[in-house]
């Protein structure tokens, strides 16, 4: 192809610009880390705290990210309303847990008191997701790509403000569970019990999902549909049913994540789904969207980065109160991955049409 000097110049200036961008980010990370470590402002114990917090936070992101990744794998669509499904799970669990708490059930059986709200949240989230799929997504399955995305944005707002209408704009305090208070001392480092329980619970749920996807007939069908819808239909798979179950399973995990999130932060609000939703999407893209182990890995990486990032990268550069920019780190990671490696860590490189 014949290229004029002007075109070559634009190409060069753009790639130069992109390289400048990369260098800037790398510089921030390297210089920030260097200065922070040199100043010795944080003790080893604090770093461990950051990492543990990041892992428990990240496992929640991973749980939500699975829903994004599974739906994307099958429908090539960003389920923008997934964060709201997460929020609806937290809300359902809140009401049940409060009731269980007032009748004294939680104190008597702490395990069941934790488990029952989680199961209830999973159930409610799955129901809401199936409803959303039926009303807002299914009729648009063959529409141009932006159409379902806009419909999903609409669904997200609809759910958010429905919950606001039902339960008001206030912040609800998730009831305390006595058994989860306090710390466990592991290798001489005190770690909050909640964080360990959350990480373990998330790991268990993800293991369950992995078994479903890899070992059951349903999982096999799901994998087949995500590979090729039409061929799967020819093989006698009811594609509609598989899509609905994918939504339901993804939503159930988001619902469980909602409860775990509420356990850590102890509050429930109609707007709580937005930020974790975007971050979980970031995790899904980070790990390679459509890729289930990738989503788990991406969640953990994002959680840890976000937790240690402000202290490690920003503090050293003399930025005041770096914690205010915690979310900005996550968003920057999001933009960077979308720009430089849209296929993520584990994903195979998607053709440009798909991405």
């Amino acid at each position, binding site marked *: 192809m014949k290229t004029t000097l002007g*075109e070559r110049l*634009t190409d060069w200036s*753009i790639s130069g*610009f*992109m390289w400048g*961008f990369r260098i800037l980010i790398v510089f921030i990370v390297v210089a920030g880390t260097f200065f922070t470590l040199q100043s010795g402002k944080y003790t080893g114990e604090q770093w461990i705290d950051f990492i543990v917090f990041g892992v428990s936070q990240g496992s929640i992101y991973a749980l939500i990210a699975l829903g994004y990744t599974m739906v994307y794998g099958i429908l090539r*669509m*960003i389920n923008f309303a997934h964060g709201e499904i997460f929020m609806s799970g937290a809300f359902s669990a809140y*009401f049940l847990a409060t009731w269980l708490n007032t009748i004294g059930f939680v104190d008597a059986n702490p395990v069941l008191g934790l488990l029952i709200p989680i199961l209830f949240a999973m159930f409610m989230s799955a129901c809401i997701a199936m409803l959303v799929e039926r*009303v*807002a997504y299914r*009729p*648009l399955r063959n*529409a141009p*790509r*932006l*159409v*379902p*995305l*806009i*419909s999903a*944005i*609409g*669904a*997200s*707002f*609809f*759910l*958010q*403000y*429905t919950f*606001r*209408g*039902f*339960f*008001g704009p206030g912040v609800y305090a998730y009831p305390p569970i006595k058994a989860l208070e306090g710390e466990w001392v592991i290798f001489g480092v005190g770690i909050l019990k909640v964080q360990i329980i959350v990480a373990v619970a998330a790991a268990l749920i993800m293991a369950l999902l992995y078994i479903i996807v890899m070992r059951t007939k349903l999982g096999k069908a799901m994998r087949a549909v995500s590979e090729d819808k039409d061929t799967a239909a020819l093989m006698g798979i009811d594609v509609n049913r598989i899509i609905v179950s994918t939504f339901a399973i993804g939503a159930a995990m988001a619902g469980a994540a909602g409860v775990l999130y509420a356990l850590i932060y102890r509050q429930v609000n109609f707007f709580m789904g*937005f930020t974790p939703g*975007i971050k979980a*999407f970031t995790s899904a*893209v980070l790990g390679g969207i459509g890729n289930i182990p990738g989503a788990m890995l991406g969640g953990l990486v994002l959680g840890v980065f976000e937790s240690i990032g402000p202290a490690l990268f920003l503090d050293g550069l003399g*930025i*005041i*109160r*770096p914690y*205010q*920019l915690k*979310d*900005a780190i996550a*968003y*920057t990671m*999001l*933009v960077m991955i*979308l*720009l430089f490696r*849209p296929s993520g860590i584990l994903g195979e490189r998607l053709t*440009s049409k798909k*991405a």
Partner: protein
Amino acid sequence: MKKENFIWSSTKIGLLAGAIAIFLCLVGMVEVFSKRDVIEKVLTLGMFLLLATSILAGFLASRRTSELLDGNKAPSNLLAGAIAGLAMGAVLAFFVLFSNQVNLRAVFLNVTPALMQLLTFNQGVGGVWQLPVLGAVSGLAGGAFLLIPQNFRKPIVQALMVIIFLALFSSLFRIIMINQGGGIERTARTIFSQTGLTITGGLIFFFGTILFSVLWSTQRERVQNSVDRLPKKGKISLRVFSIILLAYVVIMLPQAAGPFIAQVVVIISLYILMGLGLNIEIGFAGLLDLGFVAFYAIGAYTVGLLTSYGEYGLQHVSFWVAVPIAVLVAMLFGGILGVPVLGVRGDYLAIATLGFGEIVRLLAGSDFMARWLGGPRGIIGIQKPCIGTLGEFVAVDVPRVCNGIELGKPQDIYYIAIASALLIAFFSYRLRESRLGRAWMAIREDEDVAEALGIKLVQAKLLAYMLGAAFAGLGGAIFATLVGSIFASSMQLIVSINVVALIIVGGMGSIPGVIVGAIALIGLPELLREVSEFRFLLYGVALIAVMLAKPEGLWPSETISRELHHDEVAETTS
């Protein structure tokens, strides 16, 4: 295939409508809207919502019955409508009885005694039987609608729509008319009540619209013929006359309506401005940008820093100098942020730009940038525009004296906003017809084909991005001046979603669509406190509904609606 029984299908529709009715109650719409009347003492807006649901259910059931039984037959259609309405009323009645037994309010905030009073017609639980009866009657009416001859259906629907429209905007019309004084004021007082239409007003408008609509449908050809027969000069003068009339209304509106309405109209015109800007990205070039608020913020902060007489003001220049700079700065940032995302397509672009928007907001509100941007305290004391010369800057927190006319009131900013909106409308109209506009549309349809045809993707996309950013910057600049202060907390994603929603509801790529969308989506919630509570809920519904029913929007551009319906066209021609 065995056909469904129409009684069962009607019941199903009725139950669904019942669920919707309960939803409307739980979300609080029924109670809040019942503070406003459609027709005074007869029908509140809240009751109207429920009635409209059951009428619609009756209509749908009746239509489904006609499908099942192959044709309209009076008894079965009426029966279907009544069944659907009855089912909905029964569901609602069951809801009332249930919440009488169980304390739902512990979970759902809106199950208030006041709502129960409304649903039982102030008669306590004993009055609950009226719900199914009313449901059946209104469902019957809905079912009967299908039996009315086609020619009469349209006028009736139009008359109802006119009444609802007037009732919703009654406060606006009432204020304008009352401000005129004299006979107009007296008319206003007979037609409009404090909260809606009066009975007289309702009757006048209902029959007036029907009469007009029937007359129009019979006389339209004659009117059109006589317009066509006019000599060329006459046609031109008719056109000039209507433009002058429109301009007069637009110019006089804030004067006639007072500061509150003027403020609302300023906000509408600002959103028209930003809508037209984003329309270039979404509508023309097909780049869904959810980070629009970033450029809005950049425009606002630039004007703030340049003109503020508060502690963060840097230069203290006048509004007229600051705005072009703000537009250029926003455009520059559009380029800087645009270059990296050029390669990202479709829904990834939406998320990447959303990330940008959030980063800008977080940075602007953080303590890190507070030294320059005021952080959470924001920038205050933005100089109002001044026609004439500005006095010297004396000290912090002392506005510069304006020797001339100071455009301080919302009414004054209104003219600036309208003038810029007009300019941009003209600009984007010309752009759409230009070579660049056609390149954008080609990119929207298929990037690879566009590139193969020799369109320079990088250049065209970057230009779309930068122009959109420039308009957003202009919107932010005017907004900052209007409010007189800027806070990072007001630069939420919501602003971007507002703009996206109005473009999509109005019609992607269509310039009049943006105006219609801005009036409907921004104006209505600003005017009606009742609606503004449910603003984003309604946005959500509107986005989904538009995508499901009419992806081209309320006022589509011709090309887009042709594209979205090309299957149908192909079917009819083949």
